[in-house]
């Protein structure tokens, strides 16, 4: 079909896209200018590349493998608290990494609950540091994401098919083969690809649980080259490799990454007549129990130790909380200013194209962008003074691909239903945004803003590069407390951080929804 006339044009989107691409390319240029040729990759760099790929592969495969039974159990069981659990599955996505790490340490750490139990039973303990820990933390973050993606898949199987299967009295293995396996074949590759890409550029997890020559990701190696050795040439080289690796993976993944599940529409379990046997019920119950324990125990430990640690929190934590809040606010503004025009542009184009711009956020590593801007700003002024705005902008870029996935379908829908009416009334350009798109897409805008705010408030990335000793964000302040073995104060800070991340998400998401309904 020929392209239909639309009430909005893509000009603002092209400008926004240019800004995004330019900010990444400039950073890249800054790095390349400082990179000295001939340095080559040392054995430690090769080790980092290998570790990055291995941990991302393992994290993706394990997350998805575990999510299959969990999603299956949730899809076919009705039980009290099911809806709450599904909502909670969305939480790790906006959970500050460092908070989760603290929770995981409490459960799986040297003196954690699991090792205590193993010790009492006389069994050897497990270590949370190194490859184990990095993969464990990534599974903690991505198992829920994978579960939600799969749950969406299960819900896409029409209820009539299950009725037909019941009518034919198909045994469980046949139900799996005829109904569930085809769906899994469709969804699994995308889920694996998405998680693989997310884990490739992971920094905070590697910073806290990895480290050492054997467990360093490329991202962490960039940080170390920059911060400890101030070896810009090596940082530049690693950034190039990171860009090629993650960019390549993201480009491939673009074609198979599924729609991100929004909060709504997961509330009704399909009525099922199969899987009624006692063994299956027991198995599903066990899976759900283990899954919830894995997700909830670390959070519970943060809540408990955080409440106990709250009185120990130094004033610097509250100051950092204030700083984080305005970084997150700025980040949300930057995101909306970029994402809305971009999403509008993508929405009026033929499907599938242009969205690649959003992927820059996924593939370009935050530390690479930070390093590049550091180099560019350095001759002009002290980069540390710009650390907070740069952090906010980089956070916005990182949230961009998710925001686009959320906004574009909403804008497409608004244009499909009422774009014609806008044209007929000559409601074009800004008025079309003002009277059609913004009000129609308010829930999506709130969701994207909340996601960005929460991701930004919990981010421990670029800020670690610039690290102003006096003015810093809450995640970095918390990391410093952990490094100084002020465990109780760190726990208190974790609780504050957790509440702030969830709070900013809740306010944006629910606020926009309520306003849209009013």
């Amino acid at each position, binding site marked *: 079909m*020929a392209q239909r*006339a639309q009430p909005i044009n893509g000009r603002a989107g092209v400008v926004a896209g240019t800004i995004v691409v330019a900010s990444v390319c400039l950073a890249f240029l800054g790095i390349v200018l400082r990179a000295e040729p001939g340095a080559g990759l040392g054995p430690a760099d090769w080790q980092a590349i290998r570790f990055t790929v291995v941990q991302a592969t393992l994290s993706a495969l394990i997350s998805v493998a575990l999510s299959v039974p969990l999603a299956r159990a949730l899809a076919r069981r009705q039980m009290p608290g099911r809806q709450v659990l599904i909502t909670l599955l969305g939480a790790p996505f906006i959970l500050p990494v460092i908070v989760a790490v603290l929770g995981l340490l409490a459960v799986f750490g040297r003196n954690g609950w699991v090792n205590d139990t193993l010790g009492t039973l006389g069994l050897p303990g497990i270590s949370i540091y190194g490859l184990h820990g990095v993969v464990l933390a990534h599974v903690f973050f991505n198992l829920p994401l994978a579960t939600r993606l799969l749950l969406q898949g299960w819900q896409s199987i029409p209820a009539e098919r299950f009725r037909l299967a019941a009518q034919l009295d198909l045994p469980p293995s046949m139900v799996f083969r005829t109904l569930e396996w085809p769906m899994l074949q469709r969804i699994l590759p995308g889920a694996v690809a998405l998680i693989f890409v997310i884990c490739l550029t992971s920094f905070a997890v590697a910073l806290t649980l990895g480290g050492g020559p054997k467990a360093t990701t490329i991202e962490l190696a960039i940080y170390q080259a920059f911060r400890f050795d101030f070896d810009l040439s090596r940082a530049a080289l690693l950034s190039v490799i990171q860009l090629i690796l993650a960019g390549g993976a993201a480009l491939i993944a673009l074609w198979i990454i599924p729609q991100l599940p929004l909060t709504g529409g997961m509330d009704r379990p399909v009525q099922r007549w199969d899987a009624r046997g006692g063994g299956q019920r027991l198995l599903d119950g066990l899976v759900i129990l283990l899954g919830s324990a894995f997700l909830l125990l670390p959070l519970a430990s943060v809540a408990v130790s955080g409440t106990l640690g709250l009185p120990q929190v130094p004033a610097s934590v509250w100051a950092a909380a204030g700083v984080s809040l305005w970084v997150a606010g700025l980040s949300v503004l930057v995101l909306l200013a970029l994402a809305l025009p971009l999403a509008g542009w993508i929405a009026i184009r033929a499907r599938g194209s242009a969205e690649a711009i959003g992927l820059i956020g996924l593939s370009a590593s935050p530390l690479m962008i930070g390093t590049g801007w550091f180099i560019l700003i350095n001759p002009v002024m002290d980069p540390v003074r710009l650390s907070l705005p740069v952090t906010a902008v980089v956070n916005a870029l990182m949230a961009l691909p998710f925001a686009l996935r959320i906004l574009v379908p909403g804008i497409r829908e608004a244009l499909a*239903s*009422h774009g*014609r*009416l806008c*044209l*007929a*009334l*000559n*409601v*074009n350009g*800004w*008025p079309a945004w*003002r*009277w*059609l798109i913004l*009000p*129609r897409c308010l829930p999506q805008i709130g969701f994207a803003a909340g996601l960005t705010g929460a991701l930004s408030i919990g981010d421990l990335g670029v800020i670690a590069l610039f690290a102003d000793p006096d003015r810093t964000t809450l995640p970095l302040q918390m990391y410093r407390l952990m490094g100084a073995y002020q465990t109780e104060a760190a726990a208190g800070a974790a609780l504050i951080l957790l509440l702030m991340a969830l709070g900013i998400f809740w306010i944006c998401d629910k606020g926009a929804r309520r306003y*849209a309904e009013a």
Partner: protein
Amino acid sequence: MLKLKGVEIRQGAFSLAASFTVERGRRVAVIGPSGAGKSTILGALGGFIPLAKGRVYWDDAEISTLSPGARPVSMLFQDNNLFPHLTVYQNVGLGVRPNLKLTPYEIESAHNAIQRVGLDGMAERRPAELSGGQQSRASLARVLVQKEPIVLLDEPFAALGPALRQEMLDLVRELVDEIEATLLMVTHAPGDVARIADDVIFVEGGQALAPAPAAELLQNPPPALQAYLGS
């Protein structure tokens, strides 16, 4: 007057030819079998469907090169004629100015239009709080303030019951008289034709025939129209 000169519309394998003139102030029904291209004709006049050939004139000015919003046309579609998130007043006001920055005089005329179509006191409601008939009235209030010389109705009342539809047609008839507009409306029902139309354009076999007086045509339908009407 509205003049279609050698107009041809193509959509894939479908094509439709139309060459006719509608005099100013006439009320014209567009009838024909499903898929014959009734809505296509209106969509082309509204500027939503490109012409493969030919031109459209209003009086002596060519309008077929104008964008939909710039044409001297107000159009109601089968559905989605109102923005669901805006109030009746805002929906009507957008017909006056696309940025909704209305002068006091325009605000008053929007409210008058709302009153005129019988939605007194409902200006602040949203479409979801109105019945189907009231929603139709709200979109007609907007047609009233748009004051365009051509009104195109693409079966906007199709979802209403027979009695309500007749009520709406009577209202349309009054309104187009008030703003002295030329009306083209798609319909399926011969009853509608008799109720409102002066002329009939019969669309069939890839052609839109020139308008013929409604009464005459209904009494002595040519074979193709007879086949369509049945009985």
